């Protein structure tokens, strides 16, 4: 299309029109600018004022003091010890290289430390301090303080470190603390407190599960900072609030005693108040030293602990499962009575029990035994025969009433709760895992095995202790780790005569001619009742019974107990891994721990004798082991 002729008149008209368009566009943009300014300074003002304020005012965090953990009498289990620490504020450092060199020299920092410091130094923003060293000895601290004028940015300070007076004795019970790792920092939404030098969070046990109560509120100096982290002025400080004290049901003395009494064995001792359920002692040994963990553990030490066959990193009360062996026979006896078995009925024990063409062995030829004698002598034949008569589903029902296979409501990191098998369980398991269960139906030999605490039945020592407590008091005892309870638990509603029959059997185990006769209490007027157990670690091959050979194939020794007989107050369980037998390994520990509760001097005397044989007290042996770790890790480092 040929354009129409464009004249000067057209041109002038077009100019005016186009000028209006341009002017209109300019006005529109101007309007947009004004509207945007209004939006930012009116509608969004509050939001941006907040952001501006959080830019301006920053908190130099002072970590709160962690709450104490005390025992039922207020005796400290975990406290804070004041120590010296040295931090550095990168923003204020004038000569980084010289300063770092001087610090490394004075504080004897390792090359690893120096690497870490340099990395954090570079990553730090603004006023965020970087830790140089904690737990600094006083003379080094003093040396730094003196040289402070030539090292701007270095901050020698008094800090606090966690201290567990009894060390490994409470390791598994309370856990330990440590600096938060990247994952934990992320999980708390990058809470700046977690990366504050010197701040520790609970990593295990109660320290971890009750972190919220123990932590407290951080305070700090509120300061006005420039974007580059330069201090402009100090504002009103924000006070910190220490974490709350947590009182455990634990008896710290008993806990320490039990831990020491376990000695070099790999095992556990659990004692609970059988009226209220207060857990008085939960000692699992050997244990790591939470003091050394809280300072940050070396790689060598960690490796050696995790490779130790005595498993010092495992809480053997909650996380280890054992076949309970004969220790569940008192519970079986309750179940049998509930199913109508007369405790006076006798069974003849010819040294075993014939089921079809299989012969299930007893540990001896007990002749004619009633329920009481069967418990006292730990006669398998009696429980085979009676178990077969009533069927295991009825026994399993009682086992669950006694707390076996149960997960308790406690502030612990993890609980393995094991298995109380019955026919429904087996059918279900058959579908899930055919390696454990080969056929779906419950057989008579399943019943026989479970009746003597073998086969599918596996439990943790806490459950055994709860079982002992429920038998002792007839109450629905729940283990309580936190606080001191006065109110006895409600009754289970079992007939007293049933309980008496069982308690009588357990009395005879220790005080009659039973299996644990050697562990009678030497305290006038106080009698311990109990039941020994021996659990096979692996299937019996030929005549080998797990009573000799390699340590790791030896039988576990177990013992459940309560005392005093006439007025039960304490109940518990002792498990000694690969201890050969309950009477031999576990019952003496129980005896001494109970003695501690009734006659401390006698118990301490006994412990002193034993510890001389073992080569020193627990703390001495721990210190020696620590020195060993240090030597090895130093050797590794120089290699």
């Amino acid at each position: 299309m040929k354009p129409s002729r464009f004249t000067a008149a057209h041109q002038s008209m077009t100019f005016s029109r186009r000028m209006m368009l341009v002017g209109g566009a300019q006005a529109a943009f101007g309007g947009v600018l004004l509207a945007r300014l209004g939006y930012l300074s009116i509608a969004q003002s509050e939001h941006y004022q907040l952001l501006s304020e959080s830019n301006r005012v920053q908190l130099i965090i002072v970590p709160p003091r962690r709450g104490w953990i005390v025992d039922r009498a207020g005796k400290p289990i975990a406290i804070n010890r004041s120590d010296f620490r040295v931090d550095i504020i990168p923003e204020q450092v004038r000569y980084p290289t010289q300063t770092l060199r001087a610090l490394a020299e004075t504080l004897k920092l390792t090359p690893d430390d120096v690497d870490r410091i340099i990395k954090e130094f570079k990553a730090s923003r603004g006023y965020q301090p970087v830790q140089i060293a904690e737990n600094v000895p006083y003379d080094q601290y003093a040396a730094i303080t003196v040289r402070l004028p030539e090292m701007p940015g270095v901050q020698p300070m008094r800090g606090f470190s966690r201290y567990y007076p009894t060390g490994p004795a409470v390791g598994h019970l309370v856990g330990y603390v440590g600096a938060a790792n990247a994952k934990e920092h992320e999980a708390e939404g990058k809470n700046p407190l977690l990366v504050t030098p010197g701040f520790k969070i609970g990593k295990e046990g109660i320290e971890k599960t009750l972190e919220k109560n123990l932590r407290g509120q951080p305070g700090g100096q509120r300061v006005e900072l420039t974007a580059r982290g330069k201090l402009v002025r100090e504002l009103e400080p924000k006070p910190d609030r220490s974490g709350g004290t947590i009182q455990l049901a634990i008896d710290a003395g008993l806990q320490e005693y039990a831990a020491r009494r376990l000695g070099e064995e790999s095992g556990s001792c659990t004692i609970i108040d059988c009226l209220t359920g207060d857990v008085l002692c939960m000692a699992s040994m050997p244990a790591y030293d939470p003091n050394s963990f809280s300072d940050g553990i070396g790689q060598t030490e960690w490796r050696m602990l995790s490779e130790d066959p005595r498993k010092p990193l495992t809480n053997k009360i909650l996380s280890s499962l054992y076949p309970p062996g004969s220790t569940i026979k008192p519970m079986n006896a309750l179940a049998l009575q509930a199913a109508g078995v007369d405790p006076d009925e006798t069974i003849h024990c010819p040294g075993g029990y014939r089921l079809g063409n299989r012969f299930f062995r007893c540990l001896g030829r007990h002749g004619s035994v009633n329920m009481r004698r069967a418990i006292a002598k730990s006669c398998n034949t009696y429980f085979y025969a009676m178990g077969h008569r009533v069927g295991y589903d009825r026994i399993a029902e009682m086992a669950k009433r006694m707390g076996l296979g149960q997960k308790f409501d406690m502030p612990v990191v993890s609980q393995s709760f094991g298995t109380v098998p019955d026919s429904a369980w087996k059918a279900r398991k058959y579908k899930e895992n055919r390696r454990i269960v080969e056929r779906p139906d419950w057989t008579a030999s399943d019943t026989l095995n479970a009746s003597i605490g073998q086969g599918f039945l596996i439990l943790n020592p806490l459950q055994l202790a709860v079982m002992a407590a429920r038998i002792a008091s007839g109450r629905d005892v729940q283990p309580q780790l936190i606080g001191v309870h006065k109110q006895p638990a409600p009754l289970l509603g079992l007939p007293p005569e049933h309980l008496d029959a069982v308690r009588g059997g357990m009395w005879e185990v220790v005080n009659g001619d039973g299996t644990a006769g050697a562990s009678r209490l030497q305290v006038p007027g106080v009698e311990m009742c109990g039941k020994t157990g021996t659990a096979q670690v692996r299937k019996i091959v030929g005549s080998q019974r797990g009573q000799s050979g390699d340590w790791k194939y030896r039988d576990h020794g177990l013992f459940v107990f309560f005392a005093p007989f006439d007025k039960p107050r304490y109940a518990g369980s002792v498990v000694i891994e690969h201890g050969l037998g309950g009477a031999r390994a576990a019952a003496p520990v129980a005896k001494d721990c109970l003695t501690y509760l009734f006659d401390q001097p006698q118990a301490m005397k006994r412990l002193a004798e034993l510890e001389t044989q073992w080569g020193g007290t627990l703390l001495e042996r721990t210190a020696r082991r620590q020195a060993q770790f240090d030597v090895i890790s130093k050797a590794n480092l120089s290699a």
Partner: protein
Amino acid sequence: MMISSAIIPQPLARLPWRLIWLVALICTIGIITLFSAAGGSWSPYALKQGLIIIAFFALAIMISYIPERFIKSVTFPTYVAILVMLVLVEMIGFVGKGAQRWIDLGFIRLQPSEFMKPAVVLVLARFYDLLPASDVRRWRGLWPAAMLVLVPWALILVQPDLGTATMVLVGGVTVMFVAGLPMWYFLSAAGALAAALPVVYTMMHEYQRKRVLIFMDPEADPLGAGYHITQSKIAIGSGGIWGKGYLNGSQSHLDYLPEGHTDFVFATFVEEWGLIGGVMLIVAFAMVVRWGMSVSRRAKTRFAQLAAAGLSMTIFFYFTVNLMMVMGLAPVVGIPLPLVSFGGSAVMTVMICLGLLMGIERQSRSRSRLG
């Protein structure tokens, strides 16, 4: 407003006082903001900026006395000279292995791209002034003009200086638009531009691309490249309606706001003076542009009409892009707020534009006399 009193000498009375008061207001805002940006000190910004403004204002007044005839006659040679300087800058940059935008004459660093902003407007105005009306809608009305714009545009773009290149383009296109080129040119160019954006994006420098991305979502990287926009919005928004009070802007004083004395000076100002101050500054700028546009409408010659429109647009574009950038409506392109931001180039460019506009205005008033 004209001050006509016997006491005031004629030349002074004939100055466009309305404009001068507006410019004085804007410059004063700039100087007091720079005083605050330096933490309440005349140095290093405020005093120097005051001297720069006085010097270039004097230059503007001088320019306003240059007759239109003379400007017309030197337009083409000047344009060519600036073009040569642009090429020279390119070559120095090439030899020096790096981006370079200026020629160092020892005592002063000349940024030829700055001069190109008014020069491109004048050269196009001159071109359409010479072009017979009948040719405006023909091919020969388009291609020389397009070349006059696109050559410097391309040279500046490769420096790389996207902000200045865009301003040169906008100034030139405005003149072409009001000169009466067919509307469909512009519509189809706009359409083509929209279609080409993705291609342009892939051809951009890494830092430019990052700026665009950050503009789309500044919160994605609030501590990195989005930091500027985020902090600027915080400064503006936290000022509220009345501002935090003079010398009390925490964002600028604590250095959270980067470039608070140059590109982001508006944020520094609004943080302390609030919405009220911001509106006042925007309105002042708008009135300057409106004055420029009215000069264009009242101009008697075609050259003056077109030149005034283009120069007004240059000033308009200068402050609009800066404010959009500062308020998070445009990517960060590094265009300062003229007369307010610290630095001489922007003041120089705007003062040259204002000087030319004042000259046109004077001559349109006294046309009859100069005959």
